[in-house]
């Protein structure tokens, strides 16, 4: 029996007259890597933001471990164990790399209103931060201001911030966006190592098909706001309908 950790039930999101997400249901199994793909304008980013709580759905619900979290604000979701990354690099630019990650590690603790002790004296969080930086390969740059990192470094930092509080579900929004191609394998290796350590569920919105096909257990394909297909990577790449939305019908008719 596969245990569902995150579930979307008949989610719908309307912006004015535009229905961006139309009645999409989805179950994410604990411990799996679940990717959401689709052509531009398919509504996958909107759907993703409904899961993360950035948008409130027009209709439908989101469940986490059976608990209705549809209306839980961003920070509540983080406390429940759902972490998200951002498509655009979204860090604290003028703080050091270490401080960026330490803040994330500290977020779940009960020390946030201790005004009197130095933040550095809570060594657990510093250790945790350094551990995560080690994992993503940024340990040597811990003391640099985050904004002087190169782009690839910022993407890694983004991931480190996400991992630091040790969330159970990781929602990754196009982690390879804007990455130079030679940096992608490194990122994939990191995702693989997160998987290997176990206990984590990953939901991925991604365009890079190499990443999606090699990393995912389950792939959900969206088109025009609707759910089009769901299956293993092999099933999806063999699926005629999916091929046609990606390439257009003509190619398959002729080829």
């Amino acid at each position, binding site marked *: 029996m596969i245990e569902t950790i995150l579930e979307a039930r008949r989610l719908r999101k309307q912006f004015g*007259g535009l229905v961006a997400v139309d009645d999409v249901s989805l179950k994410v199994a604990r411990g799996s890597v679940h990717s959401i793909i689709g052509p531009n304008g398919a509504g996958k980013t909107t759907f993703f933001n409904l899961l993360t709580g950035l948008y409130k759905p027009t209709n439908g619900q989101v469940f986490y471990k059976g608990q209705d979290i549809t209306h839980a604000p961003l920070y509540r979701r983080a406390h429940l164990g759902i972490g998200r990354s951002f498509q655009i690099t979204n860090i604290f630019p003028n703080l050091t790399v270490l401080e960026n990650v330490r803040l994330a590690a500290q977020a779940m603790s009960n020390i946030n209103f201790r005004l009197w002790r130095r933040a550095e004296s809570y060594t657990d969080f510093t250790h945790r931060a350094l551990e995560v930086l080690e994992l993503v390969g940024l340990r040597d740059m811990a003391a640099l201001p985050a904004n002087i990192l190169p*782009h690839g470094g910022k993407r890694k930092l983004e991931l480190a911030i996400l991992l630091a509080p040790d969330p159970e579900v990781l929602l990754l929004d196009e982690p*390879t966006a*804007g990455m130079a*191609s030679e940096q992608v394998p490194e990122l994939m290796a990191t995702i693989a190592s997160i998987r290997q350590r176990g206990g984590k569920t990953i939901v991925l919105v991604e365009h890079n*098909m190499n990443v999606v096909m090699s990393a995912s257990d389950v792939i959900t394909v969206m088109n025009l706001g609707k759910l089009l297909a769901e299956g293993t990577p092999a099933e999806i790449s063999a699926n005629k309908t999916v091929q046609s939305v990606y*390439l*257009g019908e*003509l190619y398959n008719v002729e*080829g």
Partner: protein
Amino acid sequence: MTDRNNVLEVQAIHTFIGQFHILEGVSVAVPKGSITVLLGRNGAGKTTTLRSIMGLTPPSQGSILLDGQSLVGRRPYTIAQMGVGYVPEHRAIFKELSVRENLVIAQRQRGDLERRTEFIFELFPDLERFYHLPGGNLSGGQQQMLAIARALVPDNRLLLIDEPSEGLAPVIIEHLIAAIRKLAAQATVLLVEQNFRVASLLADRYVIIDDGQSVATGAMQDLRHDEALVHKYLGVA
């Protein structure tokens, strides 16, 4: 280097957005009277290429020539005035303005709109019906038509069209394809399109962009038979 037959010649441009190195050497040549399509996966840099030509995200390196005149360093409005029409992604029409006002604003000279009204209504009859309604009341497909029509109001030598078929139902796409083909008789078109079928029905030439670089170019006909290339850069698997 420059080919007199090319309306647009983009050579090895590099573009940064903030610290993102988005384009790392993109070259595109658009022959006069052709429809050229930029292909590539999401995030490859197709939209940024159009925006760089338009001057909205100016390139830091490389050259862009419009009929031999350099566009690099010019502001977007000057580039537009030189005869470049731009149809951005997501149909950036002015929703509070009426259809007519959306077209009026695109005039570069008095009388532009009068001269073109007939042609535009012939291409997109819906626009005539909703001429005085706010653009925001139009359907997605009609908004896309309006966005294209807006680029047709002045005399443009080059049209840049970003993802015309995005998020549209198949019937409407058919209509758009027909309209854009009619257009090509009047102007040169550089198109970004994700849908391979739409692209192959429309375009004469293609340029594939992958990871911020242009990696292949040629006649669209040849690409249709090059399954390996298509799957490598565009396919699902």
